[in-house]
């Protein structure tokens, strides 16, 4: 099994990168808006569908296939620009100050609506668009052939982690967000336009989700039901890392990716159990997640 160590690590990183994209938006939205968006997975799959549609269009019109890369980014921006403000203004804003049950139910209703919207707009067949993957070629590492696209994904995930950290710590917008996260009322009273911050933060979360979906499509197919599967996985990762902690989400994706890959290599019949078992174990020991700050209230 020793020859499997390098592939194991690489596979974990590649898995982790995809999972990270799914989870980071969820955790970011929770940290700023204090809302758990059950529809987050649907936004991930919408991003994937839009990206696949645009790439298929590019392929059918015989344009230069390198445009597909731009298309991936562009589709994420589109989805964020349209859905972000719409959902935040229309639905989420109404739930501020109400109990979590209401928030979860409203976003669950949104999830149901979005799932059917995807079926209506994109149809019920599977999509596959792999031009970006094929363009980048392959490398042989440790005796196993890997797609360079997978390495690109790992690089992009790292970029997002660093970028978000820089955004929060070193830009004005980041400071405003930190203020709103720390104490919403205080931020409002010193003149920060919290409504604008909320819309921006939520749209950023949607962008990250849609980007995740878009980046995932070249290496995996997209079909109805992807949103539901991704949601619970994203949720598990966000919970393990600590809701609201971006670095926590990164570490948690590594853990979940590693758990899943180890299961496939060593105990293939348990590969689906691994992420949730990891979530259960971590939450039992640290209910606020690995990087979460407050201790659980036990009575």
């Amino acid at each position, binding site marked *: 099994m020793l020859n499997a160590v390098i592939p194991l690590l690489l596979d974990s990183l590649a898995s982790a990168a995809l999972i990270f994209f799914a989870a980071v938006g969820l955790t970011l939205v929770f940290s700023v808006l204090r809302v*758990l968006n*059950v529809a987050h997975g649907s936004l991930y799959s919408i991003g994937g569908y839009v990206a696949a549609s645009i790439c298929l269009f590019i392929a059918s019109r015989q344009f230069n296939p390198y445009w597909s890369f731009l298309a991936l980014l562009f589709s994420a921006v589109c989805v964020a620009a349209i859905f972000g403000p719409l959902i935040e203004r229309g*639905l989420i804003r*109404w739930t501020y*100050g*109400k*109990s*979590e*049950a*209401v928030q*979860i*139910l*409203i976003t*669950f*209703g*949104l*999830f*149901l*609506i979005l*799932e*059917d*919207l995807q*079926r*209506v707009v994109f149809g019920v067949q599977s999509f596959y668009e792999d031009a970006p993957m094929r363009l980048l070629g392959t490398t042989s590492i440790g005796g196993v052939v890997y797609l360079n696209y997978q390495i690109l994904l790992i690089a992009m995930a790292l970029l997002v982690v660093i970028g978000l950290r820089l955004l929060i710590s070193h830009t004005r917008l980041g400071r405003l967000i930190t203020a709103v996260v720390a104490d919403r009322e205080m931020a409002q009273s010193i003149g920060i336009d919290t409504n604008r911050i909320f819309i921006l933060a939520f749209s950023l979360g949607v962008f990250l989700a849609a980007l995740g979906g878009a980046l995932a499509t070249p290496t995996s197919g997209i079909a109805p039901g992807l949103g*539901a599967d991704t*949601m*619970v996985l994203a*949720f*598990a990762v966000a*919970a393990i890392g600590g*809701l609201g902690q971006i670095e926590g989400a990164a570490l948690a994706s590594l853990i979940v990716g590693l758990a899943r890959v180890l299961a496939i290599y060593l105990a293939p*019949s*348990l*590969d*689906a*159990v691994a992420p*949730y*078992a990891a*979530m*259960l174990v971590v*939450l*039992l020991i640290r*209910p*606020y997640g690995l990087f979460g700050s407050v201790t*659980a*209230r*036990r*009575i």
Partner: protein
Amino acid sequence: MPTIIAAAAVLVLALLPVAAPWLQFVLTLAIAKGFAALGVAVLLRAGLISIGHAMFFAASAYAVAFLARAGVNDLGLLLILSVLGGGLVGAAAGSFLVRYRAIFFAMLNLAVSMVFYALCAKLYGVTGGTDGMPVPVPAVFGIVLGEPAFKSVLFYLSLGLMVLVGLAVQRYLNSPLGHALSAVHTNEIRLEYLGIPVWAVLLIAYVVSAALAGLGGAIAGLAIGRVVPDFAFWTASGHLVLIAVLGGIGGVPGAFIGALFLELLHSAAVTVTDSWNLIVGMTLIIVIMFMPQGVYGLFARKEATSL
């Protein structure tokens, strides 16, 4: 509660399959889901939202399948044993779950239910994996029935159980234990100061709710004839919470009303449109936003953080 109206409603339900035989299956399933939603509603009273109750629904359904495979062939025995099984799983899970509140309670329930789902889906040798397990037609008090006759017996039994168990849960909710649940939602610390062990109150409520969900699952497994891991998927739990909320948390009938309306609407809508989820989602949002009556307690009370 106006008993005459309730009795009339039950009578209408009992007679509907005579008018439209295909409705019987739908109504049986609706009552089963109503039981599970009632379980969720019990916990909602304490302000605890559980996105994992489909696990108990599935656990009891699988218990029925395993017991049938082991040779237990009596309807009454199957129901009782599987509900006990569901209650046991509830006690085991609840013993550590009820220490958590709010979002963490929801998350842990979800985690446990997804572990359960994944185990059921992947252990092909034991649980049949994603294909599930068959549930054969059991005998009723020693009489072996044909399939259509059994399904009628199951329906009327469920109807009867709905009334009996509904009354029992109503009594439970009106008892000191039940009122303590609402008190936990309002101000938990004060309750502790009064000397009432919150952990015990919640654990009892959790076991009751798990047993209710288990009863629903057992009936559903017997009605459908097949148990699949999808019974435990998180969207199924979400639907249970949805039903509890749609029906209104004001009382026991709420859960059954919600379940019946959702199933009937589903049967009517599915012949017209494929976008069933769209309708349900919009109904849910409309009910929550514009119909406070349907969402008791969630609005009326926000947790007080101080004594």
